[in-house]
């Protein structure tokens, strides 16, 4: 498999010299309609449209009124408006600002929830994206998060130390565990040529059973005197502090994710190591010819990628769910991270934006399910359609009859 998920970023070159007939306005129009930002917006519009059709097609009220559409079209339209408006209104109120809240503090709470959900998505997305940039497909996010959660949880429960020691040690232990786990896939690829897709999938299962074993053994992680595979809650000193006071769930994990974005940006764009990552990702043969140790680059890239995914696991165990380690601590983030990395085109700032968007969908989706009874799965549909449409600018252009990008 050749992996180039940066999906040929369209060269942002100026068009051919304008003729005097081209007005200034025309030029602006042309720049806007042939740029990528507009395609992004339209992709979101298209995805939301398709989502609306799904909601309408399955809404009982709408189907009922559709039966006598010709006789009483007003009923059908009103039912449709209620279904769509209710769904997206709930999505907005659940993810950005609750317009029905009594005061500002309650109203803004959904936005902080969005940021809370975005934290681990960004961190894990960076891990998958970094591997992409080095030409590897890291499907092992789940296993890496599970081990990170297990290690961070163990330190968070058992290390009896002041906050300034326990919290950082717990965070680092989680990242280290995930880094080594992912690094194993890197070493196997470098030394034996084993395909990282197979190895990381298999390591997901192995990590699951390892954590399951740890959570079933009183001597390792299982809460004393219980039979459930679950650990004790985190020590108060190991929990990531709340950023905006106790009224909000937003914790410092989001800030760690932001630091990670900056670090990965610097690593990829400003450091020699990042240059080697990208060179190997673009063309390992050329990189080898140029004197880059390709195998070692794979190993180092997987170590760092694993550490980043581990940060997402740490985020869950020490921040979002500090009530104890369990085998479902990854909450699907390991796989969501793949879509986040793809939507962000494996670029740290893009991943930040994609993580925020998906965090908003996650927060809003639960609100939509609770208040409107629309299954939260519709969010998955819209998310994946956005990625699909953004990845296919020619299709969006064709659908909206936009001018094509001028040839180089």
């Amino acid at each position: 498999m050749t992996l180039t998920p940066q999906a040929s970023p369209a060269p942002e070159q100026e068009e051919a010299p304008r003729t005097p007939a081209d007005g200034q306005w025309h030029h602006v129009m042309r720049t806007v309609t042939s740029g990528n930002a507009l395609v992004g917006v339209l992709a979101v519009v298209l995805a939301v449209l398709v989502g609306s059709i799904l909601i309408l097609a399955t809404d009982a009220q709408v189907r009922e009124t559709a039966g006598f559409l010709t006789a009483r079209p007003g009923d059908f339209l009103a039912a449709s408006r209620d279904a769509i408006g209710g769904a997206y209104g709930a999505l907005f109120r659940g993810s950005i600002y609750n317009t029905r809240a009594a005061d500002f503090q309650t109203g803004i709470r959904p936005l902080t929830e969005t940021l809370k959900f975005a934290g681990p998505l960004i961190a894990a997305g960076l891990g998958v994206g970094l591997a992409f940039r080095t030409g590897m497909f890291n499907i092992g996010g789940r296993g890496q998060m599970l081990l990170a959660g297990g290690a961070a949880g163990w330190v968070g429960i058992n290390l009896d130390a002041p906050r300034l020691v326990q919290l950082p040690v717990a965070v680092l232990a989680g990242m280290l565990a995930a880094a080594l786990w992912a690094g194993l896939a890197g070493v196997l690829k470098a030394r034996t040529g084993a395909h990282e897709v197979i190895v990381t999938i298999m390591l997901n299962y192995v990590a699951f059973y390892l954590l399951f074993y740890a959570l079933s053994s009183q001597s390792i992680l299982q809460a004393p005197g219980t039979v459930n595979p679950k650990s004790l809650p985190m020590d108060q000193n190991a929990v990531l502090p709340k950023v905006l006071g106790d009224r909000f769930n937003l914790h410092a994990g989001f800030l760690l994710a932001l630091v990670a974005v900056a670090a990965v940006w610097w690593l990829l764009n400003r450091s020699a190591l990042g240059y080697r990552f990208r060179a190997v990702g673009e063309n390992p043969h050329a990189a080898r010819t140029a004197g880059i140790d390709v195998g070692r680059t794979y190993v180092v890239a997987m170590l760092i990628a694993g550490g980043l995914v581990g940060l997402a696991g740490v985020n869950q165990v020490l921040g979002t769910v500090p009530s104890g380690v369990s085998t479902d601590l990854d909450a699907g983030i390991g796989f969501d991270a793949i879509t986040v990395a793809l939507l962000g085109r494996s670029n740290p700032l893009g991943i930040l934006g994609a993580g925020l968007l998906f965090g908003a969908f996650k927060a809003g989706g639960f609100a939509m399910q609770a208040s409107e009874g629309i299954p939260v799965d519709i969010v998955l549909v819209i998310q994946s359609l956005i990625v699909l449409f953004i990845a296919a600018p020619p299709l969006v252009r064709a659908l909206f009859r936009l001018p094509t990008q001028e040839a180089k």
Partner: protein
Amino acid sequence: MSQTVTPASVPEAAEPVRIAVVSAKTTVVLAVLTLALAAAVGLAAQSGDTSFRLAVPTDVVRLPTVSVPSTATAWIVVVLMAVATAESLRRYLARRPTPLWLVALFAVVGLVGFLAWAAAGGTIPVIGLLAGSLLLAVPLVFGALGGVLGERVGVVNIAIDGQLLLGAFAAAVVASLTGSAWVGVVAAMAAGALVALVLGVFAIRYFVDQVIVGVVLNVLIVGVTSFLFSQVLTENTESLNTPPRLSAVAVPLLGDIPVVGPILFRQSPLVYLLYMTVAVVTYALYRTKWGLRVRAVGEHPKAADTVGIDVIRTRFTTILIAGAVAGAGGAFYTLVSVPAFNREMTGGAGYIALAAVIFGKWDPIRSTLAALLFGFASNLQGVLSVLGSPVPSQFMLMLPYVVTIFAVAGLVGRSRPPAAAGLPYRKG
């Protein structure tokens, strides 16, 4: 270190006569596995006998159940494994590769020894174990065949999981509506082809990266099927989600052969469809003009185009067929395994099928064998967890995955996909 550790890729300039460079990987892996079993038996010796039951009650000719003393058998097996490892080492020192039959023999003997040790005091239903493995492997084999066809024509198909899931969904709904399981299978194939069509439109027509489309399609189909399941199927379970089953049918004569019959020929009709599909895909890919074209397009589309093969059309038709094959595997979940659709019921089997494609080096037969291996692994888990064993169950359960990693690292090694897999073709 990377350049030097992969002797397979380094031509030996000093010895032009000997081209094949032998790697020590296989020998190392065999040695590690031998030591692992020896350590297990040495540290946790078992008492009692282990029985291997070779017949099922309905057999016409019933073979007796074989009982062996577990610890002694395990030690004999360790010795045999050591001999095989020594033979591999001897061949390595003589710069000859370890032949496949030796590896296969090693694996079978090692497995018998492991089972004798792990199931001490119990009875292993050999027939049930193998027949169940075959059944569990059905969606994996169909998925892997779909993956092989796609990659051979140059389209990486990560969407196998989506094809299985949509196939399962379509089979459940259509079979419930029509009351015919076979119509459900056809619907499953159509659903798989539909996913392939979307993949093709984006990847071939609009040049979107195939891996992106595949991953995203998987998420999309999880979303769509779960949404429809919650919104529509749960309220109309009677009419939409109670499909008829494709129950096991014994083949006359063949089904009466001892051991082989109950394993291979007393299965669901979907398994018989599987045999045919494996044969047809293999024959078509290697022995027909169409197959030659497919492989040419996957290896060097430009050259294929130059000699007059329509690359775009070949890719489209082939991935549609591949999608139908993978979709048929989805029917397993709702028509054979559990007679109802449930959300995310494939449980990531498509990714295991993808692993089987790579494990099998993009060859239909080898990929089928790899998929059967995964099916055997998942069935072994169930059997062992019932029997109970000296090590914590979690380690037993992770064993197949660990062994797969060993196998991929030690025996398969650097695998080479079709040269043009993943690359969009732009004419001109």
